[in-house]
Every structure is written in structure tokens, then in C-alpha cells.
């Protein structure tokens, strides 16, 4: 085998231009596809992170009739005993209107438990300005505003906003109207943050609308998004009257964006495979035609057909190894570059390349295999050589 490798390498080194072009084709393919794969994987990760780790959760529990979920405290206790859930977060969602001076805005009001929300999504840490609202009984009423809402109302931390909240009582529509101090402003998160929402402490909103143990949704956070389907199936029997939705049913945008990513990855992989396979197989084939006499000499000396086949497969393998090695190194360099200069960055939503084994291994192995496959027909052609015929040629 060492002899075959030696002959393959010597013969490649003899046609340096062809060797260089062969290696360049594989290198280009690998060093294109690694950062591409890393960026797409990074995009998927960011979609998952922003889309559910911060907002929807991996699973959502909602009432079947679209009304509020009742008996939340008991349900939380039951879920607590389940184990394996990273956080369980109830949210009460209500419509309302916010006023400041002559400005007013219809708003979505979210009643949240700041402690649980912080554990699940880092909500309080993500505030751009100020701090989380106080949730203790007897604390002064406070609100956190989404950044665009704060901008539209022209308010900042410390200002007071008036919020009108309609609710039903005994079949009549009543409303509460009160002042809240702005304790913090939520910034960033791109399309997924509730940039225009107004957040109140859950107990406070419950009291205002008279729904003591209710939540509109209960979001469940897992350690791994891939467990969502299995976990949803496990939890359904525990919550028979409620609906347990995995994240892809809740956030169809995230689900289809991830599916789109996968499709782009597949298409780009197919293009890279073709872009490597065509020139590599053509060049290797031309080399075999060009080296017919040398192949005939080897045959005449007693190299069998499998040995001649082996020499040309080794050529492809050497080209593949060197090309993949160089391509991975350059691809890693490009990934580092994209870490510093992300390809997409908007309002806290940042696509950075994901540097995991898979984004390196899959393109590398795929293109190494493609290079070997490209060597197959040329190697078969070399093995078919008749020494007596080949030696007559010039």
C-alpha cells in the first residue's frame, strides 16, 4: 500500500498545475460549505433561542376553548413533581390602553411572575434600562414597557403611565384605570420580543381583572428543544382538559424558518457537491488519459489491474485529504471572521456561526467522499489499460 501511495503522490507532484487545481476545487468546496453550514446552524440556534427560549417556551399549555387556564397553582405543583422541566412560567394576557399626557396606545398587557420569568428567560437581566417590577404584596404598582411602546409614549424609567384595563364582572364590562411607575424598559430581541407590550406583576394584574388563579398560557422550558415532542406526549395525560403544544405548533414562524434553513443547507450542499465533483472527476480523467503510457509501463512491469486502480484511487484520496485539510482550516478562519462580523444583526437578534463538530464533519466527510467517488471512473479507466496497447502510444 505504501508503494501505491508513493506512486500516487509522485505522479501528482509531477503534474503540479493539475494537482493544484484539484486540491483548490476541494478546498474551495469545503471552505465554502463549512462557514455556510455554521452560519445556518447559528441562525437555527438563534431562532430557537430567541423564538422559544426567550418567549414561547418549548411547550405551551393553553385552555381548549381559548379562555384562561384556571387552577394554575395546583397545576404548577403537579408539573413541579414531574422533574426534568427547566422552568414553568404562567402568564396572564389582557388587552388595555396606556396613556401618557396626550399620547395613548392600545397595548397587550402581560402579567408575569418576575422571579420565574427571570429563571426561564433571563427577562430581568435583558432589560435595557431600569429594573424589573416589584411583585410583593403592598409594593407600589410598577410596569415594564417594551422599548417601542416606551418610545411611542415618550416615557422613560421613573415616569408614570396611566393604564386602562377593561374586564368583565357579572356579565358587564367594567374597567380599572390606575397609574403605574415605569421600573424598566425591555430592549432587543428582534422580531420576537414583545417590543410593544406592557408588563405588570402577575398578582397585580390578576387582582385587577379578578382572576385570582388564572393564566392565559403556561410556558414550559426544557433543557433541550429536541425533547419537546416526547415531553408534550408525557404531559398530555396529566392535563386532560388542557392543550399541550410543542414549540413548532406555537411558533410556526420559527418552525418554518428552521425548515427553510434545512432546505437551504441541502440545496447548497448539492451545489457544492456538483461544483467539486465535476472538475475533480474531469481533471482526474484527463490525468489518466495523459498518463496512459506510464500506466502501461507499470502494467508491463507487473502491476495488476487492482494495483493500477489503487494508485488512481489514492490520487483521489490524497487530493481529498489535502483539500479537506486546507478547506477546514480556511473554513475555520472564515467562521472566526463571521464571529466578529456576524452576517445578520438586528435588534439583539444576531446570527453567529455555530462552531460544533457537525458543521465541520459533515461537509468534510461529504466532500472527501465526493472526491473519492470522482476518482472512481478515472481509476477504473486506468485499471482497464492494456500494457501492450498503451506502450505503442506516444
Amino acid at each position, binding site marked *: 500500500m505504501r*508503494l501505491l501511495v508513493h506512486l500516487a503522490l509522485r505522479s501528482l*507532484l509531477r503534474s503540479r498545475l493539475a494537482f493544484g487545481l484539484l486540491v483548490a476545487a476541494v478546498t474551495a468546496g469545503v471552505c465554502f460549505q463549512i462557514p455556510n453550514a455554521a452560519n445556518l446552524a447559528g441562525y437555527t440556534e438563534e431562532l430557537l433561542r430567541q423564538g422559544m427560549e426567550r418567549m414561547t417556551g418549548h411547550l405551551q399549555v393553553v385552555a381548549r376553548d381559548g379562555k384562561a387556564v384556571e387552577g394554575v397553582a395546583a397545576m404548577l405543583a403537579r408539573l413541579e413533581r414531574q422533574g426534568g422541566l427547566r422552568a414553568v412560567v404562567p402568564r396572564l394576557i389582557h388587552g388595555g390602553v396606556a396613556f401618557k399626557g396626550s399620547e395613548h396606545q392600545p397595548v397587550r398587557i402581560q402579567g408575569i411572575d418576575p422571579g420565574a420569568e427571570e429563571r426561564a428567560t433571563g427577562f430581568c437581566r435583558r432589560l435595557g434600562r431600569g429594573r424589573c417590577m416589584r411583585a410583593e404584596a403592598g409594593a407600589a404598582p410598577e410596569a415594564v414597557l417594551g422599548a417601542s411602546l416606551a418610545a411611542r409614549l415618550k416615557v422613560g424609567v421613573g415616569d408614570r403611565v396611566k393604564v386602562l384595563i377593561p374586564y368583565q364582572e357579572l356579565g358587564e364590562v367594567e374597567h380599572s384605570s390606575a397609574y403605574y411607575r415605569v421600573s424598566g424598559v425591555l430592549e432587543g430581541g428582534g422580531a420576537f420580543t414583545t417590543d410593544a407590550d406592557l408588563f405588570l406583576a402577575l398578582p397585580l394584574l390578576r387582582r385587577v381583572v379578578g382572576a385570582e388563579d388564572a393564566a392565559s398560557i403556561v410556558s414550559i422550558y426544557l433543557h433541550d428543544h429536541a425533547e419537546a415532542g416526547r415531553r408534550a406526549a408525557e404531559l398530555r395525560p396529566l392535563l386532560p382538559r388542557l392543550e399541550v403544544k410543542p414549540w413548532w405548533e406555537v411558533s410556526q414562524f420559527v418552525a418554518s424558518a428552521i425548515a427553510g434553513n434545512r432546505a437551504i443547507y441541502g440545496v447548497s450542499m448539492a451545489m457544492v457537491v456538483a461544483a467539486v465533483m465535476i472538475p475533480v472527476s474531469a481533471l482526474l480523467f484527463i490525468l489518466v488519459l495523459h498518463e496512459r503510457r506510464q500506466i502501461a509501463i507499470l502494467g508491463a512491469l*507487473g502491476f*495488476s489491474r487492482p*494495483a493500477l486502480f489503487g494508485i488512481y484511487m489514492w490520487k483521489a484520496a490524497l487530493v481529498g485529504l489535502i483539500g479537506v485539510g486546507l478547506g477546514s482550516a480556511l473554513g475555520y478562519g472564515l467562521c472566526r471572521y463571521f464571529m466578529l462580523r456576524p452576517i445578520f444583526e438586528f435588534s439583539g437578534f444576531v446570527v453567529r456561526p455555530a462552531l460544533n463538530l457537525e458543521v465541520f464533519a459533515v461537509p468534510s466527510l461529504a466532500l472527501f467522499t465526493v472526491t473519492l467517488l470522482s476518482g472512481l471512473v478515472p481509476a477504473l479507466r486506468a485499471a482497464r489499460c492494456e500494457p501492450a496497447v498503451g506502450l505503442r502510444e506516444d
Partner: protein
Amino acid sequence: MLFLAAHVSRSFPQGDDSLTALDDVTLIVREHEYVAIAGPSGGGKSTLLNVLGLLDGEFSGHLEFRNQKVHGLSARERAALRLAGIGIVFQRFHLLPMLDVRDNVALPNWRLHGARRRARARAEELLAQMKLGHRLRHDPSRLSGGEMQRVAIARALVNDPPVLLADEPTGNLDASNTRAVLRIFDELAEAGRTLVVISHNPEVVTRAKRVLVLHHGKVTVDVPVGQIMEPRFNPWSTLSGTQPPREGA
């Protein structure tokens, strides 16, 4: 018996027709013989050498190499026999451009035994005998014709085959290089190696002990070297008996 060929024919398709390059050749080459094959161009000499050298398996008839049947062997089996048992030297040297002189010679030995160091040592030894010990690491294309042919002979001998086949080994050499090659052949023959040498050159042919003449694919003369210059056998004379005997003549 080194080679036994019985009723060996080889034809090449030429359009709808076919060209018979070897026509029912029967011959024996014994161990330690020094045989020359002469004859006009196109007579089938190279075709015969390709058949004997197991380069060409597409002939019909019966062929044995060292009492082993070789007709009907696969290309792979023929390659294995050739590697260990037959050294071949060509008119155009056929050295490999991607290897240096030493590795050109070492190659068949490395292939046979799988040991590079041993093969290179053997190559160095042979090249020293060929007075090329100072050119080991040179590119073969830098050598003169005579040097190239000595490298090719060293390569043919590296596995110590019982027989050396040579097709016009001096065809591209000048007189003094021709003499050098012939001296090497003499030494090999004296040492007991079987030699089958194709040549047009009377100087080369008359160094052998036995001469065959091939004409139109047939062996028309098979005589000891002493008789080859007799007019009825002499292949260089236009009146020679190398013409196929005419009917009724």
C-alpha cells in the same frame, strides 16, 4: 523449458477485416538460451514478444512459461507471473518520469516484496554494476540514451527473473552504447540468464546463439547463429529464404 508456444496465432481487427500478426507459431525456448529474433518490419516480432512477455493475453493457441500453462490466465495472474519471472527491455526505454533513477529500478522489487529499503539497496547494487552508481537520485529524463537503457536493463533484472526479453534494445542507441548493452547481455547469458532479443541489427543478432526469423507472422528460419549468414537464411539479403516458400518451389 522456459517457453513453449504451440500453434500460437494473434490477429488484430482492422475495420471489417482482421490482420494476422502471428500465424500459427510453434517454438521452444529452453533455459539458458540466448535467442535473437530478426525479420522484416511488420513481421510480428513485437507481437511475439508481447505474447511471450505475457503482456498480451489475446492470442489463440497453447503457451507455457516454465511448464505452467499461461493461455487463458487472467490479466491479474499474468501480471503476477511477469512481475516475478520476466524482465522486459524496450527500444524506447520506458522509464517512469515521476521517479528518480534508483526508484525506477527498485520499483518492481518493492512491488514484489513490499520492502522499500531492500528494493533500493538492490537497485543501488545493480546500478553500480551498470556504472550508474553516481546517478541514483537523478531524474531519468536527464540521462543519455545509453544510460537510460542501462537503467531499464537494471530495472528488468531487479527481481532476478530467469528470462530477459528485449525489443530492439539498441534501436535508439549509437554504436558505442550498442556495444555496451551487448556486453551486458553477454555477461547475463554467461551467467545463465535466458535472453530473447529482437533486433534488425546484424551486430546484435549475431551475438546470440540461436536466431529466429519472423516473416508475415510465421517463423521462417530457426537456426544456430553460425548459419544465419548463409544466403538461404540471411534475413538482410533480399534473396534470402526468409520469404515464405512458394508453392511448388
